């Protein structure tokens, strides 16, 4: 795997929470401009991996580079080079859409003289004109996600991290979010790394993906490669082939996750 110019490079990463090995020796690389998916059930270690890559969590062992910077030693450079949208709602509901954009332009270090122009570009990229004056808490789930993505574009990130970007969205809103992301990638060449537990979404939108289960990376490649290699018709079947479990079964039994997800879905309306 050519790693010299990788947008994201993860090398034997492990993270332990007390007695649980949340991420157990994971390695993968994402090429610049690629749309890369981390796929797996809740508790697979996807969010923990993203938290390490966004400098929120120290790696227990191994190393991770984002846009060529080490997430531990050059955390500040990493933060300047990324956009990050956590699974829960990250814009401020008590501010209008435009005020949220202005706020994130300031806190992500966009130079003052470029602020207005960058905000206009983000508005255009995510198609937000109609909702600029509305308080964020009155926006629909799909609009909120687009606003969030817009706020994450202002610093022109090399890599955009999206943790379950379409959770709680109906199929139409989900498609619209992905249309805008695809356009962004085509126009700005932004590398996109996202997590999902929806197999169909991974199959349709990733150029490459890695399947995670119980902290391990169990399979990676282009969706078509994975299907061929495992003699499968769908990623569900690939998951079963490489883990010996059904994704639906693997998904069950994590009350805290289910509760958190419901909360997000509820808030998204």
């Amino acid at each position, binding site marked *: 795997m050519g790693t010299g110019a990788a947008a994201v490079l993860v090398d034997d990463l492990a993270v332990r929470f007390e007695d649980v090995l949340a991420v157990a020796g994971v390695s993968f690389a994402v090429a610049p401009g690629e749309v890369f998916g981390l796929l797996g059930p809740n508790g697979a270690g996807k969010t923990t991996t993203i938290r390490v890559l966004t*400098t929120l969590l120290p790696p227990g062992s191994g190393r991770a580079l984002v846009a060529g910077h080490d997430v*531990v*030693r050059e955390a*500040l450079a990493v*933060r300047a080079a990324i956009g*990050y949208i956590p699974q829960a709602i990250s814009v401020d509901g008590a501010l209008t859409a435009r005020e949220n954009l202005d706020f994130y332009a300031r*806190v992500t270090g966009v130079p003052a003289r470029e602020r207005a122009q960058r905000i206009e570009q983000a508005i255009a990229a995510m198609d937000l004109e109609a909702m600029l004056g509305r308080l964020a808490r009155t926006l629909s789930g799909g609009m909120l996600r687009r606003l969030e993505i817009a706020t994450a574009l202002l610093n022109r990130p090399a890599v955009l991290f999206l943790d379950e970007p379409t959770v709680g969205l109906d199929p139409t809103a989900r498609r619209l979010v992905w249309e805008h992301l695809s356009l962004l990638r085509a126009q700005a060449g932004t590398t996109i790394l996202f997590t999902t537990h929806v197999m169909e979404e991974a199959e349709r939108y990733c150029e490459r993906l890695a399947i995670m289960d119980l902290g391990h990376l169990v399979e990676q490649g282009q969706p078509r490669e994975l299907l061929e290699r495992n003699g499968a018709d769908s990623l569900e079947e690939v998951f079963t082939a490489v883990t010996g479990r059904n994704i639906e079964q693997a998904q069950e039994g994590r009350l805290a996750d289910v509760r958190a997800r419901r909360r997000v879905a509820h808030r998204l309306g």
Partner: protein
Amino acid sequence: MSAHGAASPIVSAEQPALAHGAGALARVGAGTVAMAQAELRKLRHDHLDIFTRSLQPLMWLFIFGTALRHNSALTLGHLDYRAYLAPGVMAQAALFIAIFYGLAVIWERDVGQLQRLLATPLPRSAIVLGKAAGACVRALVQALLLLAVLAVAGIAVRWTLGGVLGTLALLMLGTAAFACMSMLMAAAVKERERFMGIGQLIMMPLFFASSALYPLAVMPGWLRVVARVNPLTYEVQGLRQMLVGVGGAGEVWLDVGVVAGFLVLMLLAATRAYPKAIL
């Protein structure tokens, strides 16, 4: 949950930023202003909140204050007790905002805003200072309303420009300090319900074991000792001296110094603890 490996990248990342001196200071300043401005905008979207909150100090002043108006032990013999009380309720109203400001931190952690902010190049100290400035914005609006009511009601306050500006400045110092203390609590507690309980618990001694409602002279010895280590006592004494002209001359710098020292302490502690709130 705590991550394996003691060194936090969040802490280590701060060092190069500090080393850059002026540039880092400018980023702290810009970030703080951005966060305070966002708070001001939220206030503008919700006028009702600030008005309902402003009623509480007025009720203390006009119900509690009026009831005890002619108690000479409290009025120090010559002063309208309501004038004596005004700086106390001003500080208390600001304290109330500040102590419960940590709730916003817990909320923002739950909804994802905190994670988002911590993954930006914004310095950690700017996040904490920005939040504290947000509390100050609210406290300031409330204090201005209270001052307006004092003026209209004709309560005997010394209306000197220096006194009023000094009062507001000291109030901001104290509010920022207690807001940082609240963020420290929020980072430790992480749950809304438990935070509410602890907030209520410490409000009581902070308020009643201080000079907010009555002079230290009316307290028994042991309580006076408690009041002497309570930063709110110094905040109120300073406010009272500048706004009403009561208290030993020259002591105001001691009061300001204690409150400023308390702020620095809380700011440093909150900046250290804050990133851990997300884990």
